[in-house]
């Protein structure tokens, strides 16, 4: 299945630490992607696909759950995507879950097996799974936010006995937009509790049938009411639209989860991942370096300022 590259590509330092900068020029090397081949493209929902990528060049360094990469589609562009696969996999493959919202993300969703894409990274901070040994883990996701959380969830489930209760609360607009339904069995088998909710349950405009739904209807924060975990021994990982994260964060604080044990994943425009393009600034933070994962006590005052 492999074609020989037209030119041998030299291994390229991908990490900002390795950037070969001088005082008169910034090396372009950290902006050059390594090639990866799409080895599987799985359609999760109408607009969201999960891609497995295998390196053709020197693979990027190992990632931590919550980190992201910059994925390039030839001639179309490059976008930040969190890794949604487990950091425990033994090989150099990368798994990303992409929601088609524009040019690059749509092209990625359409990239069938054999397609070649570019990858730089991994960048940013990760979820503090390692720091939560012995604690209960609570994952709260809104929409595509479940993708960046999946990486930490699979890490925790892969070393299940190191943690207390593992609970997943996932919200989506409608039943058909829920991600990873097909692997929920396996999460349950590893002892996770999974609760799902939808914003609304309406008849399909074509069939006029109300979709089958065994979960709740309402906001993801409504699911918090049923939690049995001891809050002071719980670490919460939250990812979703910004309003969902701020509401969930506040609700979790009220439940008694310490602010520094609530982690959120921020999203800002990113062009480099190296903290030099400036775009991802949020107050004093460069989200690509100081984030995307950060604690709620740090993020909350920044998110509270409109248009910061």
């Amino acid at each position, binding site marked *: 299945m492999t074609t020989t590259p037209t030119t041998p*590509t030299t291994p390229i330092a991908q990490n900002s630490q390795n950037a070969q900068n001088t005082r008169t*020029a910034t090396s372009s090397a950290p902006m050059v992607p390594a*090639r990866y081949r799409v080895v599987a493209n799985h359609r999760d929902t109408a607009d969201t696909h999960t891609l497995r990528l295998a390196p053709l060049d020197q693979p990027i360094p190992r990632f931590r759950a919550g980190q992201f990469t910059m994925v390039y589609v*030839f001639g*179309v562009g490059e976008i930040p995507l969190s890794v949604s696969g487990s950091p425990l996999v033994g090989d150099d493959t990368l798994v990303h879950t992409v929601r088609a919202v524009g040019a690059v993300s749509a092209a990625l969703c359409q990239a069938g097996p054999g397609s070649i894409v570019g990858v730089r990274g991994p960048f940013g901070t990760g979820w503090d799974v390692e720091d939560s040994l012995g604690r209960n883990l609570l994952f709260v996701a809104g929409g595509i936010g479940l993708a960046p959380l999946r990486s930490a969830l699979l890490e925790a489930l892969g070393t299940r006995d190191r943690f207390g209760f593992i609970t997943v609360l996932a919200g989506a607009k409608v039943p058909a937009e829920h991600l990873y339904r097909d692997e929920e069995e396996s999460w349950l088998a590893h002892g996770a509790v999974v609760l799902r909710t939808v914003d609304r349950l309406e008849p399909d405009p074509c069939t006029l049938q109300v979709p089958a739904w065994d979960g709740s209807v309402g906001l993801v924060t409504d699911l918090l009411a049923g939690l049995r975990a001891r809050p002071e021994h719980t670490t919460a990982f939250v990812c979703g639209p910004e309003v969902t994260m701020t509401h969930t964060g506040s609700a979790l604080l009220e439940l008694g989860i310490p602010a520094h044990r609530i982690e959120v994943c921020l999203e800002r425009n990113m062009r480099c991942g190296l903290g*030099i393009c400036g775009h991802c600034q949020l107050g004093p933070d460069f989200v690509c370096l100081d984030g995307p994962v950060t604690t709620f006590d740090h993020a909350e005052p920044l998110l509270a300022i409109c248009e910061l």
Partner: protein
Amino acid sequence: MEPSTTARRAVITAEALDDVLIALTAAGYQPVGPVVRDSAIVLDALGSAADLPHGRGTETSPGHYRLRDRSDGAVFGHSTGPQSWKQYLHPARRKLWSADRDPASGDFAPEPVAEVPVRYAFVGVRPCDLAAIRILNRALRRDENAEGPFIVAVECGDPGATCFCASTGSGPGCTDSGEGYDLALTELTGSAGHRFLVTVGTARGASILDAVPHAAAPQSAVMTARRIVAEARGRMGRTLPDTDLRVLLARSAEAERWDDVASRCLACGNCTMVCPTCFCTSVEDTTDLTGDHAERWESWDSCFDIDYSYIHGGAVRTSAKSRYRQWLTHKFGTWHDQFGSSGCVGCGRCIAWCPVGIDVTEELAALDETIEPETAR
């Protein structure tokens, strides 16, 4: 600060500037410096000292920049122009890599653009711009120990009306410790003739001086240079409010003044383009008509551009108010958190080149007046 007794000093004649350029060229440097073009003093390659703006000065005020003639024939009697050394250190546009795709297999191999480093000699770097070079390099996370361009700094004797480097601590003089420069000049145009006091900052600076006719610096020349800089400090056109700006801005996020400035600001981004430390860039991926040749380009970007903060669903900073706040807060406030210093060096470019004459020193003073130190936390 008292003149250091250890710094090596010399005096050269105005004519010897040409010898400095010859020595720099002989040592393998490409000299660049101020030249007059399009009614402004811009930066360009220097063939000889005759290219420098002899007898030309500048007149600046908010939204205003004009050249004027000087009776003293000074070569460096101007303040900063629309350009800065950023254009050499961090080009406005550069290609990062290109790739050709094999149409059959879809395979491609990105080829990084081979960088051919030019050994520049920057001639006529003002003290504010010396600080700007240091700050820019830090913001771009460059190796501060790597070899940089050769720098001939020039102390300022005639600051512009938009200058406020005394407030930012970056001018109008250079430090004796040689911070940031290889050679520093002070232009002396008095009765003793048109001369330059030369202060040696580095060993490579010393070797250039050795290749140029020079005389030991009399104490009188050193004292004259001190006086010129001290007087320039006293004639500084503008000042920053005397407060901790980082704290002021951290408390000003919801200030009403932002609405006021937003009603005047055109969000044109000129201030960020002329700023010698603004480093933001955009990355553009393109293809040619065949679709099989792709390139990646990096170009200057501005936080005033609406697309700068675009994420799916819309830009984060849509109002002009939030974009002006980003610029001012970053430059004078959060820059400290990120890079350990202010991002402003007091060069005044953003004031002179703002089409509507918005003055950062005035905006900061207005914030300082309205923000109550205790309560507005």
